């Protein structure tokens, strides 16, 4: 099993979610996050006072899936979240040691 963690532009959440639905992904977790990468920060101006804001709002998506579906999920996120400009985000893929469904106690891929 793999965990796919993607940091994307907030306005790309809807298309990514819809595309993952179409792939019949079992579930996902979404978090509003802030951070910086190549894009660095942005400048904001309040009453003429300029501030460098280092952390830009992004959305983090986490999906856990069987190994054979992981690549398709990654490809889908890339396809939907990409604008081609700096700031599109990153995808991290991790191995998952175990999954347990709290309600039933099922484990492994059955619990995904």
């Amino acid at each position, binding site marked *: 099993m793999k965990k796919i963690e993607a940091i994307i532009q907030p306005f790309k959440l809807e298309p990514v979610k819809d595309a993952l639905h179409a792939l019949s992904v079992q579930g996902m977790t979404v978090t509003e996050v802030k951070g910086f990468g190549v894009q660095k920060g942005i400048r*904001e*101006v*309040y*009453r*003429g*006072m*300029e*501030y*460098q*804001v280092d952390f830009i709002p992004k959305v983090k998506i986490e999906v856990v899936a069987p190994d054979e579906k992981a690549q398709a999920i990654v490809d889908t996120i890339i396809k939907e979240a990409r604008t081609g400009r700096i700031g599109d985000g990153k995808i991290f893929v991790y191995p998952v040691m175990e999954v347990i469904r709290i309600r039933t106690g099922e484990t492994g891929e059955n619990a995904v």
Partner: protein
Amino acid sequence: MNTGDTAFMLVSAALVMLMTPGLALFYGGMVRNKNVLGTIMQNFVLLGVISIQWAILGYSLAFGPDVGHLTGNLDWFGLNGVGFEPFKAYAATIPHQTFMIYQCMFAVITPALITGAFAERMKFSTFLVFMILWATLVYDPVAHWVWGDGGWLKNLGALDFAGGTVVHINAGIAALAAALVMGPRKGYGGHGDGTESFIPHNLPMTILGAALLWFGWFGFNAGSALAAGALASSAFTATHLATAAATLAWIGTEWIFRGKPTTLGAASGAVAGLVAITPASGFVGPMSAIIIGILAGVLCYLAVLAKPKLGYDDSLDVVGVHCIGGIVGALATGLFASKLINPAGGDGLFFGNPGQLWVQFIAVAATLLYSFVVSLILFKVLDLTMGLRVSVDDEVAGLDLSEHQEIAYNL
């Protein structure tokens, strides 16, 4: 006694009351989220503190029988004798008590304006003591000079329809004293190059506050006619047009200087326009009001831009908006006032009476000097006795938690 006038003045008093919570939201949105309750509280609590001070002592000092053209005496202590009979020297057609409670709302919002200068760092206990002293020693006498029967600036012929000197210059220059004595917030760098960012945490709250101020200000300015009639209508119209013009002037100027028109700029411009038209509202025509609004929008924006170069941390720009806006308005009254609008007022420079500008200048200078000096002394003395600032740890934690044991936004 006139029931129409009385109804209008009671509604106007309620409108002016709403300005203080409006100001609380205007300021509250501009601070960081750890200080929003502390900031709102510093305004809201004055509805309590100053209203009581006003009923016991303040009204008598400001409007009571004259002593040496400088202050009222204590004959009306505890509202003694302030009853239902009109007091002809102030308002001939409404109960004296109606005039008193209308003026109470002015007394409340004026010190509230100062709170923007020391936002995010003042100790609440010292704040309360300062406000009672400032209302008693600064607001009440200055109100007497300008509006009190026998006050020296009133006798001189100074024109201040709704409080350009008494309210805005008075509070604005006290704000400068506050910022100078208090020192900057921890991490403040002036150009945004400090170690901390002072980014407004909730601008929609600020816009809502500005909108409530705009709404309430109709009571402030039109109500200052003290009767429901043509003069109130004229002041209402002047107020609205100046504010509209100042809103556009501020965002237009920042569009040119900084490339983008901002919502905070629109809200700030509106307040600058409201401030500047306040002294002039009952003396000038609609086109003069628009010019005053444009002047206020541009000049107040430039004053706010200049602040970092001057080095003090007037956190929410009380000096730039209220002091400068008040001065613009008070002097503009000396230019644009016309007896065609208000026969009981005067003519300004552009209507053939250059002397009026000089009188306005004296009123501005006297208010600046008196309020600044007394405010400076009050802050210094309280700094040495009670301490003005919260501890550094408390400042880092935020006033909401350190002063009030609350958090504004819980998950």
